[in-house]
């Protein structure tokens, strides 16, 4: 059996977006370039284009989310698709229906695309393997595995401000252990040719053998932030912590919270990113979050164009 990437069809075309891992550079760049032209659309008076008219896109969110679900919904609506939001926590699953039964029922309502967020790693992959070949699945975050559209909008943001990936030093800072965002960012950054990717975190918040992903590990912000062009902060995921990963949020802030003083250790024109939601005073100080070097809100805006690009590329790749 040929072991091919489950996101690609036999011609190498993107059928589902489940993870940034193993995607070729050409596909990542195609998404970023397409998103570039969608930014033009989002700046017009009429922000809608007719590309996905008549398509039904189901937002299946098994985990709470505001920003991601909303930006997916806006993206789909700007493409003229019909969007159906399902709040699974209060619907069928709580009555005992299985995940695949839910998907089958929605497929019977002629769904063309599923956007899936789930607390279990691999949930989107399971659905992608199960649906008809003309139905597309986008992973909007599965457990601590992957969050590819977040990573792609981060790449879009980096390219917007820094132009070229091939001369950058990027640091991902914080709770790498629980972060699907960090994993997707690392795969995307290395594929796009960023020569120096660092992770900065206490030992208790790093996965074992994280070096194998092609990153350099630092436990100290002073050393780790030297010559850094891009700081990618992560949220401290209190809800995923079991037991004693950390003594306290205050102590975490003291050593790893991004303050203006710590930011001054990076390159002068470094940008600060955060996928949201932010814990002010825990992983990032308000002075930095609202400061000149912060590009946190542009990230959200670009997220719409990037999700429009992913949806339209998938919908256009019919077998």
């Amino acid at each position, binding site marked *: 059996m040929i072991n091919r990437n489950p996101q690609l069809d036999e011609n190498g075309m993107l059928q589902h977006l489940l993870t940034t891992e193993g995607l070729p550079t050409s596909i990542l760049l195609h998404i970023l370039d*397409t998103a570039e*032209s969608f930014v033009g659309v989002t700046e017009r008076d*009429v922000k809608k284009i007719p590309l996905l008219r008549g398509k039904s896109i189901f937002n299946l969110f098994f985990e709470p989310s505001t920003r991601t679900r909303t930006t997916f919904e806006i993206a789909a609506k700007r493409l003229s698709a019909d969007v159906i939001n399902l709040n699974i926590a209060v619907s069928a699953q709580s009555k005992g229906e299985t995940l695949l039964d839910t998907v089958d029922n929605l497929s019977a309502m002629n769904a063309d695309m599923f956007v899936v967020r789930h607390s279990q790693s691999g949930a989107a992959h399971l659905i992608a393997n199960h649906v008809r070949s003309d139905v597309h699945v986008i992973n909007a975050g599965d457990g601590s595995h992957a969050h590819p559209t977040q990573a792609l909008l981060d790449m879009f943001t980096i390219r917007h401000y820094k132009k070229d990936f091939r001369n950058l030093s990027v640091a991902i800072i914080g709770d790498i252990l629980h972060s699907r965002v960090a994993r997707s960012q690392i795969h995307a950054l290395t594929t796009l040719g960023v020569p120096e990717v660092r992770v900065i975190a206490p030992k208790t918040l790093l996965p074992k053998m994280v070096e194998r992903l092609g990153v350099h590990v630092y436990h100290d912000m002073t050393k780790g932030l030297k010559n850094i062009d891009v700081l990618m902060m992560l949220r401290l995921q209190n809800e995923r912590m079991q037991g004693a990963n950390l003594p306290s949020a205050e102590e975490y802030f003291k050593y790893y919270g991004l303050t203006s003083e710590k930011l001054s250790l990076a390159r002068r024109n470094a940008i600060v990113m955060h996928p949201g939601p932010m814990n002010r005073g825990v992983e990032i100080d308000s002075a930095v979050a609202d400061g000149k070097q912060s590009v946190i809100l542009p990230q959200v805006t670009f997220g719409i164009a990037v999700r429009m690009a992913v949806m*339209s590329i998938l919908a256009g790749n019919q077998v």
Partner: protein
Amino acid sequence: MQLPDAEILFKDLAKKIKNDCDKNVALIGIHTGGVWLAERLHQELEITQPLGTLDVSFYRDDFEKIGLHSEVKRSNIPFEIEGAHIILVDDVLNTGRTIRAAINELFDYGRPAKISLATLVDRGGRELPITAQYTGIELTLPADKILVLKREKSGKLSLDLYDKNLPE
């Protein structure tokens, strides 16, 4: 087959537009050949409005068939569409579907007073009720041939013909 000289066609086309329009008209080129042509016309006719460019990929009617494979460029309309007289510029006019998509896209920017169409070559084969107001030349070509505009590094324009089934 002997193709006409694109530079001579360009001169003719520019003359026709000049005789008919003042410098307040706005030019919008359709990617990619139409943009090259519009850039040259913009200079030649000393148009005062900045040049607009349009990529109609998001408005095409064959998305279901071919998807979004080619590189999509960003549309850029740097002037007020509302009330403007616009000349859409494309290199080759054939089925008229590209122009239909372009008109639809323009109306998402506003309501122009008037839209005209200028094309270097009208090769017939229309599938929609669309016609050009300014044409360099009318040519009858076999349906299995594709006519494209090319631009050399020097900026010189030329026409090229190739088979539909063969790569460019």
